[in-house]
């Protein structure tokens, strides 16, 4: 079984739990005492990842680090439909990569602000918040135009991709870092759509949408 070196409050670890839940891939979570223990900076953990960060996966001896690289691997290996990482379309794989790089930006701004407020990491909070709002504005406008084309996701295909999974956690937890989403209605509609994906898994701070029967259901 895949082992995920995991921390419950990490957005980057959550991205892996979320994609594996959606793809129905069983995994074992190995808790790393990221905070307050700083276990990921210790000598023992550096044997697993010399860069000293999580997540890392161990898939039957194959080790991989870096959140967005792991998403690429998991979708490539465990999604038989090939839709989550759409390598068969040059355009879509290009877009997916583009938005995964965008997610590096949301992680370094919105999620950095969250680490500062929650756990006291030393970041320039003003510039984290300004940077997050700049990216959210771009994402909100982009998603609004997608909606005009009857598209639900950040890439132009009909199916969500790992780019949605990469961006979603940074966005949905932004208010913990003091970044309100009230001015981004298209983002809010998109986060609701992500929450309704079959297999969606919440994390602390993210509330699932209510269970509802389809309208046609006969009671």
């Amino acid at each position, binding site marked *: 079984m895949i082992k995920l070196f995991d921390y419950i409050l990490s957005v980057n670890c959550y991205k892996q739990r979320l994609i594996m839940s959606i793809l129905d891939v069983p995994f074992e979570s190995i808790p790393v005492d990221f905070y*307050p*223990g700083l276990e990921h900076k210790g000598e023992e953990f550096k044997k697993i990842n010399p860069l000293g960060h999580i997540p890392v996966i161990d898939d039957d001896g194959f080790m991989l680090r870096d959140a967005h690289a792991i998403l690429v691997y998991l979708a490539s290996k465990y999604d038989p439909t090939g839709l989550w990482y759409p390598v068969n379309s040059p355009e879509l794989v290009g877009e997916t990569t583009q938005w995964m790089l965008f997610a590096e930006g949301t992680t370094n701004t919105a999620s950095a602000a969250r680490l500062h*407020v*929650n*756990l006291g990491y*030393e970041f320039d909070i003003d510039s984290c*918040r300004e940077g997050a709002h700049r990216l959210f504005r771009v994402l909100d406008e982009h998603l609004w135009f997608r909606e005009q084309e009857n598209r639900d996701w950040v890439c132009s295909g009909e199916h969500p991709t790992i780019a949605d999974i990469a961006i979603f956690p940074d966005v949905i937890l932004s208010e*913990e870092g003091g970044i309100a989403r009230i001015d981004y209605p298209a983002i809010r509609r998109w986060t609701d759509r992500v929450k309704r994906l079959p297999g969606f898994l919440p*994390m602390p*701070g993210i509330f699932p949408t209510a269970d509802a029967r389809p309208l046609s259901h006969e009671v």
Partner: protein
Amino acid sequence: MLKYRHVRNLGFGGLEHPVMNLLGNPEVCTNGAILDLWHPVVPTSEIEVGIVRQVVLLGQAVSYSLTAPGTYFAWRTDPAIPAGTVFMPSVVTENLPVLHRYGYLWTSLGDPSESLFEIPEYDEPDRRNIHAATIGVYCSAPRAVENFLDLGHFPYVHTGVLGIEPHTEVVEYDVHVDPENNELWATNCRFFQPMAAATSTTGKTVGYEFRVPHPYCCLLYKTSPLDSSRVDAIGLFVRSVAPDYIEANMFLSLLDESSSDSFIRQFQQLIFAQDKPILENQNPKLLPLDPRAETPVRSDKLAIAYRRWLSDLGVTYGVLPKT
């Protein structure tokens, strides 16, 4: 980048200034009932020998350090002794009182009692005392304490862990003030929990007691999953940074020999992180002490008593006092 718990800029005002402004209002505590208490500064496990560090307590910057022989120091921040520099005890002109208790450094900005409230479980030899985390939350200290004292939210906020529908009933429990120590207690509480502790494997009805020995500190005692005749103790020790911003310390004293610290901490952090968005969205931010300000239900008996107890103590910081 990886050193935490030092000077934290909340983004609302300059912490370089010893008086912090939050949302434009002066937030320095002048409430004697609060100033005279001991307050947690930081977990001692995070204090480095010989380095000056700084936090904000009740709107005032407080510096602290530890000498090589193991003596803790705290003082009101002095620009001549900046955070991050090497600590020399002789340069501090006026020390604040300090205590090292339950794994935390405590100080007071007023005239504190000699000792802190007692947690007898802490000294039992077969217990594990663990600091689970210090987490920043945009809420008032009394809002965080009141949430900690509430069984009713378990099935909705900690779904599948501390509660689950349809087991939502909070059965009648008893509330009293212990006259000797002026502590607030709730006893004979019972609640069905699917996963009461990190070690639980099945759901069961768990016995609870809640204890509030300090306006900003509270404990709960719950049946140990390993020994039904004894209890685990879980504490929430809040440092109020501003009336509406806290750094909450989670403390555990458990009868658990098998789980790793990492596992126990992540379980506790999971619970706390589920509460966080609820706390941050409560309005008003300050806890209203007027009994007519919010509409309680029967299960809020302890919360009602807590608000009355705060009023009786003369607490005005972090609350909307009775008019």
